[in-house]
């Protein structure tokens, strides 16, 4: 069953065509990776899917519904969320508070109800707190829940972003270079973690430069170059694709 279907998607910045008529899809339970050299348009593609930017043309269908051009908060409420290549943690909040914001869509109580502590507000709060703790434990940051988020080391801030996004219980998560800044051990742990997302009900779209991880976790890989789709296939197929090798991976990779 297809959860995300992108067809003919394009985005221009002035003279630059960041995304050029790209087609691909993600099926439920799949881990699909987008790879390509710097400036290939991977982050722009994520921005379009998550609503951070609007497409110039083409369509993005999520569960059959057109989400291209929708604001990001509505897309998130539908169950699509993301992490950021350039970290976007809430520096002014603690670790667990960061993740509780991720669980925002699981609550219903409004401003007036919150202000007067309407019955049900307390139980909703503890539910959200519980969700956040579970998400932190998932990524192994449970111990650090009460620390200010900004003092976490770089690699842990990446994990925090993943926990925050997973607290939303997303159907689809977009991970933009989650392993950047992590050492080999951390990267291996991250790969194992991501591999488990589908069984938690979360399909994955992954952008990552660490090829070892990409090859290990991906069911399918889409290769972008200068905004256009160059190739698509299983990790094995991609590694043997001569166009991919010459355009991106380079002779020395395999």
């Amino acid at each position, binding site marked *: 069953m297809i959860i995300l279907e992108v067809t003919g998607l394009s985005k221009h910045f002035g003279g630059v065509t960041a995304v050029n008529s790209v087609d691909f899809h993600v099926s439920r339970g799949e881990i699909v990776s987008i790879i390509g050299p710097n400036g290939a348009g991977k982050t722009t593609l994520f921005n379009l899917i998550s609503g951070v930017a609007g497409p110039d043309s083409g369509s993005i269908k999520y569960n059959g519904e057109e989400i291209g051009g929708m604001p990001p908060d509505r897309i998130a409420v539908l169950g699509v969320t993301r992490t950021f290549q350039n970290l976007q943690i809430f520096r002014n909040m603690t670790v667990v508070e960061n993740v509780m914001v991720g669980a925002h869509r699981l609550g219903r109580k409004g401003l007036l109800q*919150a202000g*007067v502590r309407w019955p049900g507000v307390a139980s909703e709060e503890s539910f959200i707190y519980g969700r956040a703790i579970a998400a932190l434990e998932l990524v192994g940051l449970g111990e650090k829940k009460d620390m200010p988020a900004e003092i976490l080391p770089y690699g842990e801030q990446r994990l925090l972003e993943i926990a925050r996004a997973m607290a939303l219980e997303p159907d689809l998560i977009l991970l933009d270079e989650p392993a950047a800044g992590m050492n080999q051990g951390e990267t291996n742990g991250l790969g194992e973690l991501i591999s488990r997302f589908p069984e938690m009900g979360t399909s994955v779209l992954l952008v990552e430069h660490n090829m070892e991880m990409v090859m290990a976790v991906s*069911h399918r890989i889409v290769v972008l170059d200068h905004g256009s789709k160059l190739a698509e296939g299983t*990790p094995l197929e991609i590694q043997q694709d001569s166009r991919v090798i010459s355009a991106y991976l380079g002779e020395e990779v395999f």
Partner: protein
Amino acid sequence: MIQSGLLSKKVARYLLFLIFIAILGTLPLLMPNTYYLGNIVLIGIYSIMVIGLCLLMGYAGQVSLGHAAFYGLGAYGSGLLTVNWGWQPLPAMLAAALITALVAFLIGISTLKLKEHYLALATLGSGVIIYIFFNEQVNLTGGPSGFSGIPYFSIAGWEFGSEIRYYYLVWFFVLLAVAFARNLVNSRIGRALRALHGSELAAACMGVPAYKYKVQIFVLSAVYGSIAGSLYAHYVTFISPSPFGFQASVEFVLMAAIGGLASIWGPILGVAAVLTLTELLRALVPVLIPTAGGEFEIIFFGLILVAVMIFMPEGLTGGIKNRWAKRKSGYYSGKEQAEGPARNVALPPAADGRAAE
């Protein structure tokens, strides 16, 4: 270890609150005369207003330069409804708050979608318009000379006619205002608002509707102002436009900034500090510079506002809290913020891909 630290912090906070209540309860009995009590009533009224402004400035990251107009709408709404139409004070207060909420809503939806300073400009403009309205609608508002005969606040016939009764009434409202604000700040919505401060982009991608919450918090802060205005009208029983002009708006912003935007008790401190300064200034300036006029005040407060923004951007309470936190914990000592290291385009062993499905 962290657990016990939090617990004792909670206990300390609770104790502090009890002490505050005890002082608040016994204060009128200790006052030598009603002049001081009157000042404390005013501090309470302004505090309600400034708590609302702090919610807006500290949690929604927006400044209103016309909040005195909402204060005025509350005062005039209550005054007119009780004097001209014979309403009871409590329903009049609620109706005035509703009208104010509507006005704020219209200003909010038309500007909060735009970036940064548009709300400040829009509130400034609306504030001026509302002020002119108070001045020019002579038949309705009595124009520049205002109108009098506003009844004391009363609930079910019980009148808050004496200084002491009014003191308890106002501070009861202050406690309500603080409780509501605290509950809000410590809720899902409060967290969402703080998240907007940290990263509007990430908050949006977590499903936080920034625009909606900003409008809501702006309307709420206007309602705080309106309630304060109603309490003011029933206290002084006479109103004219002058306390609701631009200078008042600036003073409110100053009170909020001095008190500290992101705290709930800060506003009370900020109000007390500014009112005390005003009294001192009014006593001192004529002695020192006999030729100085009223404009001296606004220049002086303008300078203080700039100084606070530069040297104590988090206000009195924020500044103190930070210094305290820095001294007490190692949290903020090592502020190493690793830069993203060079890209890792690793050489994979020919890993075979897992098949989809």
